[in-house]
């Protein structure tokens, strides 16, 4: 009996290390990142016989700053919005068991709000004054986005409408509202300082969105550490009825998750309009909601709600951006890029699906069980 148990447990421990890695939620996004890196390395060596894809150089930008440039910088920079949305989308998914498809349209609203405020000020106001204007505009857009988030959240939490259906309303109406905020004018801000948030601050070689994203990631990490947001939203997502009987108000938690997503949207809005110092209502952040949902799924999170891994979601966002950039370098035309992306994404999603994970785990278990069984038989013999 005891020797047999030892045999089982030792064969367990040998394989459990590998099994643990594979079963870890971070495995899929990290493996996907590694695959993309290896692929690009190989492509570099075969096609160009060098490793130019990964080269990062310090060179003067169009505005004359010395800035870092290279594909990796582009990826990290451009993934910022997606990473921010992934944070909020993960919480919404966990608590409500559904997704918000209106984030692209709400980004347009947030961006339009910021421009509405900023456009009224001439470019020659002092730095301090300009900063105050930007901060005011941003705070207003945070309030506006949070209110729209609360609107979505109220539909979901109090009227029990499925999240996708509830957010379909703003998905449809959001861009019109954004245009209406500025009377459908094409606004562009001439003050170069407005571009700092989406591009570079003079003297700093790293794109500003990277810093903004890092700050937001730190904030959410602190929130998850020092509050019960994780426990509450997971509990609500898994079993709302028993959460309620344990004193949690599921409605409040769902509402809160949508409001947090709204705040993430406001930050994205600032970055987006700052990148170009202008807005095109119908195009800004187009289809970004799908990428944000993909990031959550790529992170191995159950889109039906419940347990979540924030790190995996954020990594998922970078994987998607990396993939997009890789496809561009492979000279895939921008019109065809979605199709290619879809192929890769479907593979990744299938790999991280519960079905395949279970299949892999079962295979492992069967092998272990067979071994345990043969040990038992040996012992009996």
């Amino acid at each position, binding site marked *: 009996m005891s020797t047999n148990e030892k045999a*089982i447990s030792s064969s367990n421990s040998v394989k459990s290390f590998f099994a643990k890695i594979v079963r870890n939620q971070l495995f899929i996004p990290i493996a996907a990142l590694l695959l993309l890196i290896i692929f690009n390395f190989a492509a570099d060596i075969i096609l160009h016989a060098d490793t130019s894809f990964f080269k990062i150089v310090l060179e003067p930008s169009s505005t004359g700053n010395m800035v870092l440039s290279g594909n990796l910088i582009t990826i990290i920079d451009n993934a910022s919005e997606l990473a921010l949305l992934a944070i909020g989308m993960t919480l919404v998914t966990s608590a409500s068991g559904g997704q918000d498809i209106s984030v692209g349209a709400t980004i347009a609203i947030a961006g339009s709000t910021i421009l509405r405020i900023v456009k009224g000020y001439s470019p020659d106001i002092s730095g301090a004054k300009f900063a105050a204007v930007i901060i005011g505009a941003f705070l207003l857009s945070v309030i506006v986005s949070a209110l729209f988030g609360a609107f979505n959240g109220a539909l979901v939490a109090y009227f029990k409408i499925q999240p996708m259906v509830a957010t379909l309303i703003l998905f449809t109406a959001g861009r019109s509202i954004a245009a209406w905020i500025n009377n459908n004018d094409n606004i562009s801000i001439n003050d170069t300082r407005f571009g700092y948030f989406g591009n570079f601050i003079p003297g700093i070689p790293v794109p500003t969105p990277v810093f903004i994203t890092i700050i937001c990631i730190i904030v959410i990490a602190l929130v998850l550490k020092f509050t019960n947001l994780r*426990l509450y939203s997971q509990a609500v997502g898994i079993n709302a*009825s028993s959460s309620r009987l344990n004193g*949690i108000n599921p409605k409040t938690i769902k509402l809160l998750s949508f409001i947090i997503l709204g705040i993430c949207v406001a930050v994205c809005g600032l970055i987006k309009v700052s990148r170009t110092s202008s807005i095109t209502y119908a195009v800004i952040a187009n289809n970004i909601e799908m990428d944000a949902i993909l990031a959550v799924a790529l992170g191995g999170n159950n889109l039906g709600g419940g*347990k979540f891994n924030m790190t995996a979601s954020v990594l998922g966002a970078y994987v998607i951006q990396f993939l997009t950039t890789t496809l561009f370098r492979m000279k895939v035309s921008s019109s065809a890029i979605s199709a290619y992306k879809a192929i890769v994404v479907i593979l990744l999603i299938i790999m991280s699906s519960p079905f395949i994970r279970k299949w892999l785990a079962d295979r492992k278990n069967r092998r272990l*069980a067979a071994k345990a*069984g043969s040990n038992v*038989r040996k012992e009996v013999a």
Partner: protein
Amino acid sequence: MIEGAVLEMRGICKYFPGVRALEKVDFTLREGEIHALMGENGAGKSTLIKVLTGVYPMDGGEVMLSDHFVHIRSPQDAQNVGIATVYQEITLCPNLTVAENMYIGRTKGVLTDWRMMNSSAGRLLEELGIPVSPKEQLGNCSIAVQQMVAIARAVDMDCKVLILDEPTSSLDEQEVQKLFNLMRDLKKKGVGIIFVTHFLEQVYEVCDRITVLRDGKLVGEYVIEDLPRVQLVSKMLGKDFDDMADIKTEGDADRIDLSELPVYQANNLTGTTGIKPFDFEIHAGEVNGFTGLLGSGRSESVRAIFGADRVVGGTVKMHGKTVKIRKPLDAMKHGISYLPEDRKLDGIVGDLSVRDNIILALQVMKGFFRPFSRAQAERFADYYIKLLNIKTASQDTPIKSLSGGNQQKVILARWLLADPVYLILDEPTRGIDVGTKVEIQKLVLKLAAEGKSVTFISSEIDEMIRTCSRLIVMRDGKVVGELKGDDLNQNKIMATIAGGES
């Protein structure tokens, strides 16, 4: 093959990593018998059923069905060879009609002859004495009828072996009798029935034979007359059963000081769930119970006390001071804990770890902005896993992968950790094994001895008599009697429930 056997399983082995769930288990089912499969939680009952129905592949052994070796690879396979299963949870579609449910997935071709389907379903239902129209929507039927429809579906598929996995745990007495009549009818028709249940009385009422499993091994197969109840229990537990008689409420009445203000006192408490306004009070160190048939309002009453459902009227005093309890958190903050009747739906948070499930209530009381440190949470979980002897691989194991009894202990741990002055336990012993039942009853008495007030609800009147010093009897949403002292006996309780208000 044994004479008359319809199903024979020989040397069944099933291993999970590190665990031998079944070790050379034999099981024989004869034609036209009702065969109880008994064992504590984790004895291997469900694993054996799952191997038989093709949910798990087996790692050794053979299955013979009426003289043929069969390989069952999937539940579909099992159905095709004539093994039908009716689970505790209804697995039919509530939004379809009874007839549709009976024939779903079994009609040939694209077209369906609805008239024919309804009439043949009607015939079968009548034949089996199931009181329901084939056109009724299934969701509108009582759980018992739904269960019977599931059985009718199985019977109509010409099953030779019918597995009933805990079919009675959500039925009341009359419904159980209806189900038993149906089982006896089927038995006469030659169907072999495997009956899995935790209710000993039911086993002795309806079964012919008992197979007992313990720790994944076969203990033995017995004809029911040869195995008295006490022996069955000792076989299941694998030790001489330290008799239920150990549990006594002697001296209970003396300990309660009725001159002190009651811990909890409600006047005219009014809910919205169909119960009449009621008065209730409980003193420190007292164990009381609510009894009545299913649907009599006993659960609704305690839910109203906890604020689980909307409370619209009445006054509540705790230790003499008027308090407002409108939602669960209010009750929790005043030191009331509530273990809900439906463990799966209202109790566990399935995917969360055992640790998170244990700390949940106390954590919520402590507040959103003040999470327990990991180390603190681990200490809490460790303490209660040891105290209540919870069998779990680790603190991080999701609660849903524990057995029913251990899940219940985790929920119990959650509410003990909240350190209540008044603990409400609604059916804490439902669907769990005998050993754990006794443990829970003992725990209740120990808590009362420590001066806590407990409300204990159980459908097994024995349990209530053993643990409670005062019983509140309900019928049709109304309190119809209060029994204590010498009145606490089976006959008196039955009479009060039935309506002999003398």
